[in-house]
């Protein structure tokens, strides 16, 4: 996960100073560390990979133009993520005027249950609230199927259908592996709000994975 490769503060200071001095190796180092994360964040807001790559390019240009003004008080990574987040949001709302981002919405609404109510026994049943069709174990699913291109495509689609707030949180938490407090910090939301959004998002992605594996 990304948090394990987080550079130390002195490391970061050196990078910033080298970048200000126009050191290409420092730039490449920074790109290697953060571009994958920046791409994922961009993908959370814009409808295509090509546009996400453009957003990442714009963000790096923003980084270069802003590096003189970067203050050591904020963490370099947080600063970079804010830059890409802002650009991606702006671009996302521009795109939303022309292309419908979420074409299909799930049958149950945003504040609805994590699992379709039809999966549970009704109140008149002997075991109300218990599974009618219990989930099956995925431990026998081969790794090659679990991590196939087709699976990633399904998961990407499920992410694309989430409300934006949920998509932001699940991208940062589960795709990028950021700890909860960092996500709260970057998105300026409370721990509780973060957890609720994460819960809804994960529940929907799980349902999509289940549909794919059991079709």
């Amino acid at each position: 996960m990304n948090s394990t490769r987080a550079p130390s503060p002195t490391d970061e200071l050196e990078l910033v100073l080298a970048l200000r001095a126009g050191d290409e190796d420092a730039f490449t180092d920074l790109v290697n560390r953060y571009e994958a994360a920046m791409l994922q964040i961009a993908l959370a807001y814009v409808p295509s990979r090509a546009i996400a790559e453009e957003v990442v390019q714009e963000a790096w240009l923003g980084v270069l133009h802003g590096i003189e003004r970067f203050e050591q008080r904020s963490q370099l990574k947080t600063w970079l993520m804010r830059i890409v987040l802002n650009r991606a949001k702006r671009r996302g709302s521009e795109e939303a005027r022309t292309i419908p981002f979420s074409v299909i919405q799930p049958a149950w609404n945003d504040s609805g249950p994590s699992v379709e109510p039809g999966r549970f026994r009704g109140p008149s049943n002997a075991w109300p609230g218990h599974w009618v069709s219990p989930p099956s174990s995925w431990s026998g699913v081969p790794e090659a199927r679990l991590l196939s291109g087709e699976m990633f495509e399904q998961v990407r689609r499920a992410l694309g259908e989430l409300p934006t707030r949920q998509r932001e949180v699940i991208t940062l938490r589960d795709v990028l592996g950021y700890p909860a407090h960092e996500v709260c910090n970057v998105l300026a939301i409370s721990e509780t709000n973060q957890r609720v959004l994460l819960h809804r998002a994960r529940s929907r992605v799980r349902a999509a994975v289940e549909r794919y594996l059991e079709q």
Partner: protein
Amino acid sequence: MRHASRELTCQELVELVTEYLEDTLAPSERLRFDAHLRTCPGCTAYIEQMRTTIRVLGKLSEESVSEDARRELLATFRTWKADVAKRDG
């Protein structure tokens, strides 16, 4: 008010999964949760599915930007550097 010692239903449990995985359940809720899991293969599978889902999500980040984008980025850097040098020099 819910009775504290009453058993959780599966439908209630699925709403608490994230709090369970984040370890933010109150101790008494956690006990009820664990007690339910011990006797419910369906919910045990559900938690395992959720963990698998999180693992699959984590693999998405291995995608990186294209080689073309990378080249364009370096070109951008060199232009920026030249501009800075012109301005400062």
